[in-house]
């Protein structure tokens, strides 16, 4: 029996507007409301609403069989609340079926876990609060921004009460081991790890519409054959598939057949006796004895390297990152709610992604919307905003 875990990640950042240096200490309006509104609505129409509708139908069609989980960044929840509350309602409907698990994650799609425990747990707790308020749920599983994970991050999460963590089945960490088993953190053995089978995910994310791929077109039947072939001996029980939810309808628009692909896939897997769907927290009920997995350095789902260079790889990113977290003590002291929220939002992975000089070469990860003409302009804009936030946080 193969246990199959479908997990979808949802995040769009609060995009920055063009913020010039002469705005510093003049104007504290950092975010591009028009773009944020536009993007949230566009994604809602193309992806979240139709995809949620499809998932709901499938849950009803396959009762007790089809289950799935989501991680929804706090920044996205806030965008939905502001601009398209119907998305929130449709998630509530999904959660009400009992077949949908909402995992914990960060409040602003933050990369604070690369900085330190305090900043990270602040994000985690704020997100818990928001999930409680919005959906009335308390997560026990956790899916970090871009599934960033290390031994240390796992420990922090253990202390924060999480029992399952979703991360990447990074080959350089696993070596000969397979991502299709349950693992645990070496220092907090109560923290179980579900590792993503990224090749299988990439077959959809990167290759679904790739006409030059020898397996094109990808059908549900073909994909199930891929799944079958990963477990010929029958004792590698977990297939963990995590995708950006935007894959359905945005990265691949409806006319590519992406909706039909997922619908058929879920129909067929639900009917297939070799497979059963699980959500992350269900592993807690299983008796499997997990082996430990060491991740001394942070891993993520980025590119082929599965490291964190996409966000803190070049000197610009490192500088912005260091300057950002230098303000942590000010954040703790300040009473300026707006500036504090802005500081949290500036931790968003996307801001750093825009400064990536991977931009210069071949883009591996498909970026949704280009915002800046170059990483340099992204950096300048970011630093201008950060400078103003600093001034606002310093003010009594």
């Amino acid at each position, binding site marked *: 029996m193969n246990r199959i875990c479908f997990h979808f990640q949802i995040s769009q950042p609060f995009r920055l507007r063009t913020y010039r*240096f002469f705005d510093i200490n003049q104007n504290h309006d950092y975010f591009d409301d028009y773009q944020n509104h536009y993007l949230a609505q566009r994604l809602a129409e193309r992806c979240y609403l139709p995809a949620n509708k499809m998932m709901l139908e499938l849950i009803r069609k396959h009762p007790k069989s089809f289950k799935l989980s989501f991680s929804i960044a706090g920044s996205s929840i806030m965008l939905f609340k502001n601009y398209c509350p119907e998305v929130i309602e449709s998630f509530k409907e999904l959660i009400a079926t009992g077949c949908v698990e909402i995992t914990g994650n960060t409040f602003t799609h933050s990369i604070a876990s690369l900085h330190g425990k305090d900043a990270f747990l602040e994000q985690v707790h704020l997100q818990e609060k928001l999930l409680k308020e919005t959906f009335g749920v308390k997560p026990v599983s956790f899916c970090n921004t871009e599934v960033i994970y290390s031994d240390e991050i796992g420990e922090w999460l253990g202390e924060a009460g999480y029992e399952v963590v979703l991360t990447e089945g990074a080959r350089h960490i696993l070596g000969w081991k397979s991502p299709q088993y349950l693992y645990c953190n070496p220092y907090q053995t109560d923290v179980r790890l579900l590792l993503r089978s990224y090749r299988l995910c990439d077959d959809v994310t990167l290759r679904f519409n790739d006409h030059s791929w020898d397996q094109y077109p990808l059908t549900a039947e073909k994909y199930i054959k891929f799944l079958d072939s990963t477990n010929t001996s029958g004792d590698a029980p977990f297939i963990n598939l995590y995708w950006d939810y935007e894959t359905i309808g945005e990265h691949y628009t409806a006319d590519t057949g992406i909706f039909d692909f997922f619908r058929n896939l879920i129909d067929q897997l639900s009917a297939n006796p070799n497979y059963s769907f699980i959500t992350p927290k269900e592993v807690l009920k299983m008796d499997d004895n997990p082996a430990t997995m060491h991740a001394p350095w942070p891993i993520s789902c980025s590119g082929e390297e599965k490291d964190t260079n996409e966000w803190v790889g070049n*000197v610009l990113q490192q500088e912005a990152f260091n300057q950002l977290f230098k303000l942590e003590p000010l954040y703790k002291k300040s009473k300026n709610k707006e500036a504090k929220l802005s500081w949290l939002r500036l931790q968003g992975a996307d801001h750093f992604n825009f400064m990536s000089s991977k931009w*210069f070469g071949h883009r591996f990860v498909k970026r949704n919307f280009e915002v800046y*003409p170059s990483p*340099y302009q992204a950096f300048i804009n970011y630093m*201008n905003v950060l400078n103003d936030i600093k001034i606002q946080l310093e003010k009594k």
Partner: protein
Amino acid sequence: MFGWEFPPHISGGLGTACYGLTKGLALNGVDVTFVMPHASGDEDEHYVKIRNASDVEIDTSSVTYREHIFPGVSYIQVNSRLVPYVGLEGYYNVIDQMSSGTLEQEFTGSRRKHTFSSGYGKNLMQEVNLYAQVAAEIAKSEEFDLIHAHDWLTYRAGIAAKRVSGKPLVVHIHATEYDRSGEHNRNDIVYGMEREGMMAADAVCAVSDLTRNIVIEKYGIPAHKVFTLHNAVVPTDKKVEREKNVDEKIVTFLGRVTFQKGPDYFVETAKRVLDKDPNVRFVLAGDGDMMQHVIERVAELGISDRFHFTGFLRGADIDKMFGMSDVYVMPSISEPFGISPLEAMRAKVPVVISKQSGVAEVLQHAIKVDFWDIDATADAIYGLLHYPALSKLFADKGEEEVNNLKWENVAKKLKVIYEKTLHYE
């Protein structure tokens, strides 16, 4: 190849390009006979007659000098008053100055002084046609497969050589009349000669996609025979020393102070930056017909204490200027290529360049803005001055990037264009 300037008398982009290209071609196994007009004052000492020119029935102004410079390249100088980089008006200026006995030529890079013994100017057309006659004679006596002519004053020479020899002609566009004079002040004589050359040519090389588009759209040249061939950089060992004697950061504009180069945008940008941060000095290095306007505007904005004029800089002073600069700005309104940002980058100075320049097409490690977007330019300057991580990255990557722009590679592309052209014939 009908080109301009050769060492040691290189004064600007066109000469550098001709030199780099010739050298690059030689490295790619292409033999070049380089023909150029020579308007230097020392022609009496250096000029000798072509030995086998007894059958050339032209007057003494066509005396030429020939020399082998490096393997594969031979070099013929033709005594002519043609000078590079000018439109019609510029040419008459030059002629006027020649009449008064001295000529001062101003280029982006440096200033040259020529002294002429013959005291009167000639009609440009006569000069161009005379040069074409010499070209035809040279074409008769030389062995070659293909003709390559640089910049509009030599196109007639190229056409003449083509007519005599029946060999294909490639013309090279370093600037168009639209760049020199703008959309509305186009000189029809110059435009006509440029177009004549492009039409007669079997292939047209443009120094950027920007220029290529102008050639196709404004000159009506069929796109299939127009190729983009970006410029490169001649490697040098000289290191520019970073040396500064003021505490403030320095932002530099270096170039002709003419409409085309956008100096007024530089002034407005300076005002934006200084409003926020008075600890910056702006330097405008160069001279030109907009100088008065610029000085007045600086005074009007009340930033004279932070805005400096150096006048025209040459040679070592340019290096010194780069050595002092923290940011180099090129806000050109229209720049077919624009070699000076590359020199700044080589001196480890971060650059902000206008998107309306050909060089923007080849650079990654430069901030590119629209020339009219003063806010964006100011923001880029401020960012480079205040966020050290940024300027450091620029300094390192920029130098590396420039050193990778090699004429050898450009010549390799040119060779392919040559081969295509020859195949068509």
